[in-house]
């Protein structure tokens, strides 16, 4: 959703070091078409604010307590993600990934010229309505299969260990994340979430369901050659024929 040219670009600044935030705040204030809507001091808070305040642009520090900037980006939905400018002091590997994916970044320490150049590119992107998946994909590529996932818990987000997820179920625009103690509702598509969680741990068994392969207890053969997937927790799920071969292959070992 490209913003209209005359609309204000709503900005979120994320950095755990307050002098670093102050610097961005100061330079952002000089820009008439930008509006600083929020500041976050950590990754979880950033993820929360992105979901709540829906900024157009995020200046995202990479090294932070609780959740890194890359993790924040990786859990964004590719299509609806805000534009992201990564800000980092030192991460050669991430920078390589950014260069490959045409992702905007600022290397600390940066001067006003570089900051303005980055803004120029961002304005161009907004003008073109170019795709926003770059940072999300770059972060996912850099992180590989994520080990933990932020999920909504009342008003806030909490991080859960991906190994504790039993299965996932698509539900309109949401995904139900089933864990031993409760079910979390994520505003994501199953496809997108599975891409983030990685192929090696989760397998799709139906158009709308996927399981944690480690949680599969047995495959139960049904009369017509269909299968049911029984999880260690006792839950039984229908295995669609489309995905049967893949799962059979992977649970054989």
């Amino acid at each position, binding site marked *: 959703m490209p913003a209209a040219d005359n609309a204000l670009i709503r900005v979120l600044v994320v950095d*755990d*070091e*307050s*002098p*670093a935030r*102050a*610097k961005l705040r*100061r330079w952002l204030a000089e820009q008439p078409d930008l509006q600083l809507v929020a500041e976050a*001091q*950590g990754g*979880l*808070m950033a993820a929360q604010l992105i979901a709540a305040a829906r900024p157009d642009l995020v200046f995202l520090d990479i*090294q*932070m*307590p*609780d*959740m*890194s900037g890359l993790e924040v980006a990786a859990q964004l939905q590719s299509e609806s993600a805000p534009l992201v400018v990564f800000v980092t*002091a*030192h991460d050669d590997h991430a920078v390589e990934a950014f260069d490959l994916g045409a992702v905007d970044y600022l*290397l*600390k*320490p*940066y*001067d006003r010229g570089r900051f303005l150049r980055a803004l120029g590119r961002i304005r161009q992107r907004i003008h073109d309505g170019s795709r926003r998946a770059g940072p999300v994909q770059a972060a996912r590529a850099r992180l590989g299969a994520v*080990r*933990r996932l932020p999920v909504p818990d009342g008003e*806030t*987000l*909490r*991080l*859960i*260990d991906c*190994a*504790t997820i039993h299965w996932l179920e698509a539900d309109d625009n949401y995904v139900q994340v089933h864990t031993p103690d409760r079910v979390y509702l994520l505003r994501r598509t199953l496809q997108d979430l599975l891409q983030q969680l990685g192929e090696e741990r989760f397998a799709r068994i139906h158009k709308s369901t996927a399981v944690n392969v480690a949680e599969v207890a047995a495959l139960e053969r049904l009369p017509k050659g269909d299968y049911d997937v029984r999880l260690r927790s006792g839950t039984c799920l229908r295995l669609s024929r489309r995905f049967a071969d893949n799962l059979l292959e992977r649970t054989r070992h």
Partner: protein
Amino acid sequence: MPAPGELTSMPGSARMHTHVISVMRVVLPGLLLLLWLLVSLVEKALLIHTPGVPLWRPFLMSLIPTVGLGILLWWALKSGYFERVPVAPPRYWFARYLRAIPLVIVADVLLVLAVREATSLFLDLRYGYIPFVLFVVYEGIKVTLFYIIWLGLLFGILTLQRWREDAERMMGIQKALAEAQLSQLQAQLRPHFLFNALNTVSSLMMTDPLRADRMLAQLGDLLRASLSAGRHEPVPLREELKILSKYAEIMQERFEGRVVMQWEVAEDVLDVPVPPMLLQPLLENAFKHGVERNTETVRIVVRAGQVDGSLRLDVFNSGSSLNGSGAALANGTAGTDGRVAGLDEHRVGLRNCQERLRLLYGSAAELNISDEPTGGVCASVRLPCQPQTMH
């Protein structure tokens, strides 16, 4: 934290010992054979004018001290006896063994007599009569010469061995030290720290030029100190703490409001020499695992004091814990990869410190890291107050 046993083994006395034995195992029989032949030939030459002595007799007779000494030497080497006797200064070493000459003569005479008796009894060999005193003098001179030649050779071998072992050990120490120093240096100048500090300066420049200026000066001091840490000389604790406080101030500037530093330093230990940049990695860890991973305020305490005659240095942080979960994840649950990776890194840094201490002080120093009962993690170093040797 890694058990001390995990540390890579360094040249120690045990290894040295086996090394000497393995060399001697090859050299010793050869030397024995050579000397036996030599002494036999000398004896043969001495007996040339004595008629009726068969050719083999001098060879048999000189076999007695050869075998006797051979057994003695073998036992001494095997039991590590020579390892415990210092080679230097040589005159003490020689004096020690030359004192045993009378004993050697007596033993040799008795042995030779016994062999004589035995062979004349059982093999019906005849020996020309020589007066007993003459016999003792003759045998005594022979065995003494034999013994002294042996001592000389042994001394040469042992000295060479020691010299080689020393050279090897020194090289090992030097290499390990260089590596430790290098990793210290890299830790000190960790690019991430440097770039972030520069970014803070760049931010302060706009709002508070004086503070920015002060921070740049501190950064400069820190760089200078880390460069001079390449030298091995110990520095007074006072100096080490000064550098440490500069690092702490820069970090406090970066993590404004998120850290409270406390210094509890006893006056009487300020002049104790410590290896340069010993505490910096520990403080860095405290920031990295305590402050950087927490959004709440973390307390870091640096303590220095005397405990039971040794210097004890503590770096405590209230924000981390060693066993996985804890304060580090404010809202999260356990099992985060970032944290585990961090711990590994932590361990590498700690191992470097431990290795360095071990090289410098042997078992007289130690570094421990543990969870505090009231929360937080404390890394503590114990050093001798007066280090004996610093390489």
